[in-house]
């Protein structure tokens, strides 16, 4: 699965690599600003567009001077929280995806690889089955705890015996995921109430999460973001292989630990709220890498912003596609996102890891 860094080098085939460094940096910086603008535009769409037609003027009134009209309620109680949540969760999953693909040097890795999604899913079911907790506000804590626990177990299994290589981590993740998925299936089969709650959660949606849920997970997202950015230089060194990295003075263990902690916090907090929308984490880094190349100090912010744009964009599409009903964002991502990803793969050679 993993290959040596030398065999991986695309040998200057990617156009950006041939550009002179200074000009390249300017271009990437401009691109980043462009993405930031795009994220703002998508955010505005997220607040302005929906099943209910609300004139832009009324949206503005709802934001700055609400008087409790129906329009105000829809904008403030529905669109604002789901858009904010979409931006935060999308960014988190994009970042986590770039991190996990970087750490495992596996282009098919998604943020759920370390058992995080499976842990969250099992905890959500357990919360309903054993403790009767079905509200989103309550199950967020369970999901988060489940994600963290699963990730710790995977890390311990994957690094015990002096390992900690990308392969052992991925294998441990796969094993723990399989085990937890089996347990989840068991719970779901046992109890129809649990099945209902699980179905609601597993599709992946930004709606009905309430405004307080984002506040609940925000600290975890912020810490995860910080760790991710701190991890970027080490990740670049690690791309050359652990031996070379060690030779360059990079301490492997702490770098991996930081990465796993960031992935866990970002993914755990994200899926706890919205359900497993791991697709974002799989696709976004590939798109970002096509623009930035493999350097993580660029790849990470690009992935984060692209993730936010993609998730909120998909959510907006889901609102207008089947009016007066809505499609959950998880479904839109699968239906619209998959063909897009295939087109991307076919259109150009992706930057390999």
């Amino acid at each position: 699965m993993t290959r040596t860094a030398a065999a991986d080098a695309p040998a200057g085939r990617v156009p950006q690599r041939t550009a002179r460094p200074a000009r390249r940096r300017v271009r990437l910086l401009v691109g980043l600003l462009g993405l930031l603008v795009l994220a703002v535009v998508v955010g505005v769409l997220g607040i302005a567009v929906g099943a209910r037609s609300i004139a832009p003027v009324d949206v503005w009134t709802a934001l700055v001077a609400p008087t409790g009209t129906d329009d105000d309620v829809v904008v403030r109680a529905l669109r604002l929280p789901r858009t904010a949540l979409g931006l935060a969760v999308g960014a988190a999953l994009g970042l986590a995806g770039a991190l996990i693909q970087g750490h495992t040097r596996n282009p098919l890795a998604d943020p759920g690889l370390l058992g995080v999604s499976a842990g969250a899913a099992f905890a959500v079911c357990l919360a309903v089955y054993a403790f009767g907790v079905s509200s989103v506000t309550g199950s967020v804590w369970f999901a988060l705890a489940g994600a963290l626990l699963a990730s710790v177990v995977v890390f311990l299994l994957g690094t015990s015996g002096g390992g900690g290589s990308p392969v052992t981590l991925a294998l441990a993740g796969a094993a723990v995921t399989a085990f937890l998925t089996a347990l989840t299936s068991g719970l779901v089969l046992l109890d129809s109430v649990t099945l209902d709650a699980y179905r609601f959660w597993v599709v992946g949606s930004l709606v009905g999460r309430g405004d307080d849920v984002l506040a609940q997970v925000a600290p975890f997202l912020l810490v995860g973001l910080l760790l991710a950015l701190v991890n970027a230089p080490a990740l670049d060194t690690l791309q050359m292989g652990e031996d070379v990295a060690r030779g360059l003075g990079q301490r492997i263990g702490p770098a991996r630990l930081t990465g796993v902690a960031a992935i866990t916090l970002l993914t755990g907090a994200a899926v706890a709220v919205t359900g497993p929308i791991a697709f974002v984490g799989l696709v976004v880094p590939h798109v970002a890498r096509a623009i930035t190349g493999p350097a993580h100090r660029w790849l990470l912010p690009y992935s984060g912003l692209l993730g936010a744009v993609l998730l909120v964009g998909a959510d907006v599409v889901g609102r207008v596609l089947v009016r007066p009903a809505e499609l959950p964002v998880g479904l839109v991502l699968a239906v619209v996102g998959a063909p897009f990803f295939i087109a991307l793969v076919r259109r150009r050679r992706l930057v390999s890891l």
Partner: protein
Amino acid sequence: MRARPTLSALAALALLTGCGSTEEPASADAQGEAPAGAFPVEVAHTFGSTTIEEQPERVVVLGWSAQDTLYALGVDPVGMPTYTWGGGDDGVVPWNDEHYDPDVTTLLDTADGPPLEEIAALRPDVILAPYEGFDESVYLDLSAIAPTVAYPDQPWTTPWREQTRMIGTALGRAEEAEQLIADTEQQVAGVAAEHPEFEGLSFAYTSLGADALYLYLPTDPRVQLVEDLGLELAPSVAELAGDDAESFYAQLSLEEAPEIESDVLIGWTDGLTVEEVLTSELYASVPAIQRNAAVVLDDTGFAAAASMVSPLSIPYTLDQLVDRLAEAAANASS
């Protein structure tokens, strides 16, 4: 105990209509037998028509609430679905509790479709599924086990009267089924007469979820029962649901909640508690909820009774719904 007076009334009716016959039809009824000479009978359904040659003794019912008509006619099914939703811990809906006999009736887990082997093992004479939704291949599988009566038209939308009639016909007791319908209608009409304030009030029947809401449409038996109480489905329901006349419900974005304009509203919670619905800023924007003219419920046993309309569930539903609806109606007009 609702079925008892009905049955004695039926026996009396059978006595009247049986005048001149040398047999004693009343005693036959008491044992759950059809009048002599009723068979063979033919029942039409969506996959064609099924002929039942002789009086079935062992009846398996599938789908929603078919066993209710059997119980009301004094027949115990040998197999019926277990109700994971709406049923108690034993999987039996509350209005069947007084009738259900575990020694006679096997509960079938139909979550993944009719369990064919288990049904075959019950050696049924007939399989009755007038309120079901299985496809033709399942119908053929079932028909290989015993003559099977499927649903009449669209899946999961059979009106309760038609369901009752189909079962009555299949058991050779069409007249008793008609009487059962008439008695039930009279009961509903009686409630409507006691509550003249229901007349002409507009209503919406909804399921209130955390990420979507659903409107029940005129084809839904739930809606029809409330209409029988004198209320009228609000025009806003048709406007919001669009032209999807086939379905018995329409899914809506939560953003449409303020548009559900009606005098009163009946709403089942879906993944939320009643408390969460009533305190939600969004659902507070539904006009009827705003006026405190909404019946918001989360008791699944009651939800099942309201959903699985039948001669047995209607009395159960009325018992629980009418007082709350009257309260909502009072708030609607104040």
